[in-house]
């Protein structure tokens, strides 16, 4: 025993670092290392390290899904950088422009350099683990180039027939699984109403026919209502199938945010209490709907982009409300300190704020209007798209 223990101490296992590092809570990090017979996931908190091992012979697969964080980071970073550059050329706005550039330009450049983002999961017979370090598509590709030969050396290569066999076996192990849906019906169920994905689906069908595979099982789409979506849940799959959802709270939240933004935009033309108060009311309603949406979207088939925009919208509304409250309080403190005690007066002051009072007010209104449009318009479009595509 002692010999074995001493051996363990003196001979460090040779690991090779795989691309990608995830930063956790500013000080921690998570990395993936390729060992001789296993992958090692190291989660470091600075002074301690936690290890998870995935033996090459036990790894069932990797799934990487593209996320929209890259596009949003690049878009917002680019927008605010451009705004900063424009402000830098104005007479008094250079300080605000420099502020925007300082925060937005690194975000835009970072996303431009590192490319599209993704979410990667690794699956074994007993667990499905997220791999935060492989959160960029290029890191995932590079890591796979190093890992795939090792896994294939340990396990061999999986043929499509074997995969389909495992698929059918997993289905048979779960009683109550709905019968396979005929191809035409499947298409009608999903894209038949609008035909948005007809071309893409045809391409898949052609590929499927080429390699002689049966219809893919999609529990969230093909399972009748009330039945558990067992077709997709294989061995060790504890999570329930995603359910179809029309995303009503999301729709209402984006509508409220858009209306609030439109009312905010009227301040460029005239300053009045009524539209300001209405915008405030709609902004508050949007926050409530966003929170409802965030609570209810769990375990649904909602696309990742809508989920992300919901989080972004909720954060945007809260920050906007906080900024407007602070500017309202400041405005009252400067102009009418006696009225500061009443909350109604603060709300009125917020509603009466004119963008032409100063550069600060103009910048706040610009951010409110463009930010609101940047969140609400794509959100509305995506919810419409989601409903049209998935309507049974």
């Amino acid at each position: 025993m002692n010999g074995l223990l001493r051996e363990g101490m003196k001979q460090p296992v040779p690991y090779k670092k795989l691309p990608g590092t995830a930063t956790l809570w500013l000080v921690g990090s998570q990395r993936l290392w390729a060992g001789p017979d296993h992958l090692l996931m190291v989660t470091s908190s600075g002074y301690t390290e936690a290890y998870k091992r995935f033996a090459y012979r036990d790894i069932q697969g990797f799934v990487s899904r593209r996320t929209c964080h890259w596009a949003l980071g690049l878009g917002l970073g680019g927008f605010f950088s451009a705004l900063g550059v424009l402000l830098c050329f104005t007479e008094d706005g250079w300080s605000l422009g420099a502020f925007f550039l300082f925060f937005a330009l690194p975000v835009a450049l970072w996303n431009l350099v590192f490319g599209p983002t993704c979410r990667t999961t690794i699956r074994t017979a007993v667990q499905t683990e997220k791999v935060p370090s492989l959160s960029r598509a290029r890191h995932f590709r590079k890591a796979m180039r190093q890992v795939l030969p090792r896994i294939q050396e340990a396990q061999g290569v999986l043929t499509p027939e074997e995969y389909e066999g495992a698929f059918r076996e997993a289905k048979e192990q779960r009683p109550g699984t709905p019968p396979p849906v005929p191809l035409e019906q499947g298409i009608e169920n999903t894209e038949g109403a609008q035909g948005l994905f007809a071309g893409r689906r045809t391409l898949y069908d052609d590929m499927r026919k080429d390699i002689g595979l049966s219809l893919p099982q999609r529990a969230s789409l093909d399972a009748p209502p009330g039945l558990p979506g067992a077709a997709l849940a294989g061995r060790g799959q504890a999570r329930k199938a995603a359910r179809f959802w029309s995303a009503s709270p999301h729709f209402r939240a984006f509508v409220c945010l858009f209306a609030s933004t439109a009312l905010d935009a009227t301040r460029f033309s005239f300053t009045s209490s009524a539209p300001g108060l209405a915008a405030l009311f709609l902004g508050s309603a949007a926050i409530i709907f966003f929170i409802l949406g965030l609570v209810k979207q769990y375990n649904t088939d909602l696309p990742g982009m809508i989920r992300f925009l919901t989080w972004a919208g909720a954060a945007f509304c809260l920050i906007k409300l906080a900024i407007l409250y602070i500017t309202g309080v400041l405005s009252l403190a400067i102009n009418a300190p006696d009225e500061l005690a009443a909350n109604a007066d603060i709300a009125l002051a917020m509603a009466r704020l004119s963008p032409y009072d100063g550069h600060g007010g103009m910048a706040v209104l610009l951010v409110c209007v463009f930010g609101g449009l940047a969140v609400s318009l794509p959100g509305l479009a995506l919810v419409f798209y989601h409903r049209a595509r998935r309507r049974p």
Partner: protein
Amino acid sequence: MLTCDNCNTAVPGYLVNTGEARCPGCGDKITAYAFPAIARVEQGQHPESLMELGHAGCFYHPGKKAVVPCGSCGRFLCALCDLELDGKHLCPACLETGKDAGKIASVEKERVNHDSLVLSMAILPVLIWPIVVITAPLTIYSTFRHWKKPLSLTRKSRWRFIAGSGIALLELAGIAVIAITLAAQ
């Protein structure tokens, strides 16, 4: 079965090991790789019963036939008790002992990076200089105390220990110079 992590839709066979494609459920772009382990059915070990005289029995299951001795304590083990680790055969008790002691690298779940702690302790006085009186001796003590302890699984070099103790020695030298100067005045 591989599933999309967004909508939990099963990834169909024609999307596996073929590069990036759209998920049939949510439409997000996914890349899926599957390996033969997904089609493998794990079978547990079934130890043979001890039928003949002269055959050794398992230490933990006397009625079962021993197939291998423990590489650490030498006890005879049946197929059920045999735990293979890095090519060595161990009994459950030895594995547990080694795991608890944290000295079998293959089953270790956590380690403390003493070298990083030492280096941080040596650098900390840059922010709060008066604590150098405490941290410098503590750094040198920690270096000696933890020098032989295993490093992170992914590190081989002990340069942090050396750098930390070097900085601490410089700090101690600085303290000594200041003390002597003050005493001379």
